[in-house]
C-alpha cells in the first residue's frame, strides 16, 4: 500500500536522478533554521509580543530616532561617495594598464579581510585631533573624529569593495562596440561615458550602492571608536544603541530597535534582488 501512495506522489515530480536530494535539502533547511532563522524569528516574535504602545515608545524615543537618522544619513553619504569612487576605481582597473595595478586590485578587498574593530581603532587613531590625518584636517578647520564625518569615513572604509566588485565584472563584459557605435555617431568621450556606459552600468552601481548602504546602516565595529557615541552630539549609530540597551538589560528596547533594523535590511535586500533580477532579464534579452 505504501509503495502505491509513494508512486502516486513520485509520478508527478521529476525523478531525482542525482542522489542526495532529501538529505542535502533537509540538512540545509535544518541548519539554516536552527542557526539563523529561529534566532532571528525569536527577535521578531519578541517584538510582536510587545504592546503597540510599548513598541512605539521604544522606537520613537529621541535617542533612537537620532540614531536612525545618523546611521541612515551617514551610510547614505558613504554609499554615494563609494559609488563615485567605486565607478572610477572599476574603470581604472578594467580599462587602463599601469604599474601596481594588481596591487591596487588586491587592496580593494582589504576592508573585507580586516576585522572591523581593527579598522575602527586605526581610523580613530588616524583622525583624532593630533593624529596623522586629523592634525592637518584640524588646521583646515575640519574635525573628523567624534563627528558625523568620522562615522561617514568609517562607513566609506567598510563599503569600498561593494561598488567596485559589482561594477567591475559588468564593465569587463561591456561590449566595446557600444562605445564605438557612440563614437561613430559623433559623441565625444564624455557624453559617451555619461549617456551610454553609465546607463549600462546603472544596475550594477545600484546593487553595489544598496549593499554598501545596508552594510553601513548595520555597521558597528569600525564606527564606534571614531564616532564618540555621544547622545548629545547625535553621534550614536543604531548598532551602538542596540548594544547599549543590551548592556543595560533593556531587552524590549533592544528588540524593538533591532526589529526596525531587520525590516530595513530586508527591504534593502529585496530591492537589491529586484535590481539584479531585472538586470539579468535585460541582459538575457539581448
Amino acid at each position, binding site marked *: 500500500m505504501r509503495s502505491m501512495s509513494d*508512486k502516486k506522489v*513520485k*509520478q*508527478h*515530480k*521529476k*525523478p531525482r*536522478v542525482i542522489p542526495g536530494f532529501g538529505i542535502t535539502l533537509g540538512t540545509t533547511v535544518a541548519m539554516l533554521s536552527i542557526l539563523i532563522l529561529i534566532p532571528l524569528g525569536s527577535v521578531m516574535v519578541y517584538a510582536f509580543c510587545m504592546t503597540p504602545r510599548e513598541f512605539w515608545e521604544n522606537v520613537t524615543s529621541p535617542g533612537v530616532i537620532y540614531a536612525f537618522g545618523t546611521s541612515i544619513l551617514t551610510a547614505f553619504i558613504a554609499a554615494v561617495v563609494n559609488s563615485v569612487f567605486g565607478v572610477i576605481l572599476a574603470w581604472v582597473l578594467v580599462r587602463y594598464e599601469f604599474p601596481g595595478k594588481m596591487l591596487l586590485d588586491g587592496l580593494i578587498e582589504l576592508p573585507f579581510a580586516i576585522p572591523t574593530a581593527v579598522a575602527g581603532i586605526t581610523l580613530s587613531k588616524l583622525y583624532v585631533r593630533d593624529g596623522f590625518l586629523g592634525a592637518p584636517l584640524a588646521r583646515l578647520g575640519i574635525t573628523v573624529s567624534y563627528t558625523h564625518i568620522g562615522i561617514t569615513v568609517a562607513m566609506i572604509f567598510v563599503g569600498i569593495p561593494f561598488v567596485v566588485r559589482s561594477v567591475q565584472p559588468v564593465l569587463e563584459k561591456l561590449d566595446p562596440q557600444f562605445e564605438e557605435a557612440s563614437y561613430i555617431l559623433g559623441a565625444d568621450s564624455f557624453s559617451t561615458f555619461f549617456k551610454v556606459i553609465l546607463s549600462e552600468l546603472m544596475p550594477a552601481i545600484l546593487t553595489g550602492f544598496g549593499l554598501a548602504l545596508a552594510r553601513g546602516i548595520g555597521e558597528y565595529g569600525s564606527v564606534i571608536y571614531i564616532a564618540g557615541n555621544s547622545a548629545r552630539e547625535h553621534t550614536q549609530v543604531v548598532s551602538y544603541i542596540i548594544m547599549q540597551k543590551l548592556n543595560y538589560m533593556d531587552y524590549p528596547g533592544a528588540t524593538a530597535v533591532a526589529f526596525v533594523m531587520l525590516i530595513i535590511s530586508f527591504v534593502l535586500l529585496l530591492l537589491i534582488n529586484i535590481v539584479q533580477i531585472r538586470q539579468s532579464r535585460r541582459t538575457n534579452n539581448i
Partner: protein
Amino acid sequence: MYVELKNINKTFDGFRASRDINIGIEKGSLTALLGPSGSGKTTILRMIAGLENPDSGDIFIDGVRVNDIAPSERGIGFVFQNYALFRYMTVFDNIAYGLKIRKQPKEEIKKRVTELIELTGLTGMEKRYPNQLSGGQRQRVAFARALAPNPHLLLLDEPFAAIDAKVRHELRMWLRDMIHKVGITSIFVTHDQDEAVEVASQIIVTNNGRVEQTGTAREIYGRPATAFVTEFIGQPAVIDNYGRLKGFEEEDGFTKAVVRPEFIEAFKSDNSRFKHVIGCSEEGTITDIMFRGTSLELTLDVGGIKLSTHRSLERREVEIGEKMRVIIYRLFAVKGDEVRLIENEELKKQDMHNARLESYLYSQDGYFVM
C-alpha cells in the same frame, strides 16, 4: 517489441510534452525520434532513460515494466547532447567509470576499455583530457563510455548537435556503422531530417507532444500519414486553392496542398523532349536561383504561386526573369489531418509511358525512390 511505450502522458508546468504516446521499437533497430524543437522528442528519450517520469502510461524494456526501476538499473547507455564527459578524468577513466562503479576487477576493466578505445579509433588518446579532444573525438569517447558496461539499449540525445557541419556527415556514417557493428538497439533524437534519414532504419516523427508517424524513411517520404508530416518532411511548398493549378481539381473539400521540388518539372518551351506534354504545362517565371552544390534550386512564380524545383547543373543555363514551362506531376492535398496524393489529371490523359520519361525520380507506383 524490445522497447514499448504505452499511453504515455507527460506535462511540465502546464505544458503537455507527451500526449498519449505509443511506440514500439524492435530489437537491434536504429530508431530516430525526429521533430521540431519542443515537439516532445527529447522528453520521450529521457523517459525511456528514467531521467523523467511519465505522468501516466507504461514503459517496457525487454518485456519488463521499468517505470519504477532506477535509471541505472535499466541497462541503458546514454549519450548526452553535450556529451557530459567528466572533465577531470582522462579518456581512459571516462570510459572506465561505469565499470569501476560496478566494481569489476581491474584487469577486466582494462581489457574492456582497451577494446572500446580500439573500436572507436581512439588509440593513443587514453591519457588525454576531454578539453584536449576535438568535437568528433569527444563524441567517440561519450559513445565508448556509454557502451562500456554492455548496455542493451543505447540512447543518444541530439548526438550531432555539438559538431561542426563539416565533420557531421562523416560522423553520422561512423555512428551508423558502429551501432550496426555492435548490434545494439539504439534510439537517437534529432531535429534534422537528413540526419534521421541517413542514419536511422526507423523514424518516429513527433510534433506537439504526439507521435505523428512511425516508419522507414521511404514510408515517411512517400506516404506521409498526417498534415504535419507532409509539411515537415522534404522541402515542401504549401499552397492554398490548388485547383488553380492545371491538371488538378479540388475534391471533397480538399483545398490546401503541399508540393515538393521533386514533384515539379520546369523546362524551356523549346525543349523537344517535353513537346508532347507541353499542353499540360503552365507558364512560370524564375524569381530566384540558388546554387546548391550539386544542383540549382529554382524558385518559380506560377500564376502567383511560389514553387521551387531542383535543376541539374548539366542542363541548359537559366536566369532570373526567364519564362519557363512548368509541369506539376502530383501533390499532397491536405484537409485537416487527412492527406491524399493527387496525380495530375491532364498528364494521365497523355500517353503514360511518354509522360513518365522525364520523371526518372519516381518508381512505377509513384513513390519516391531513395
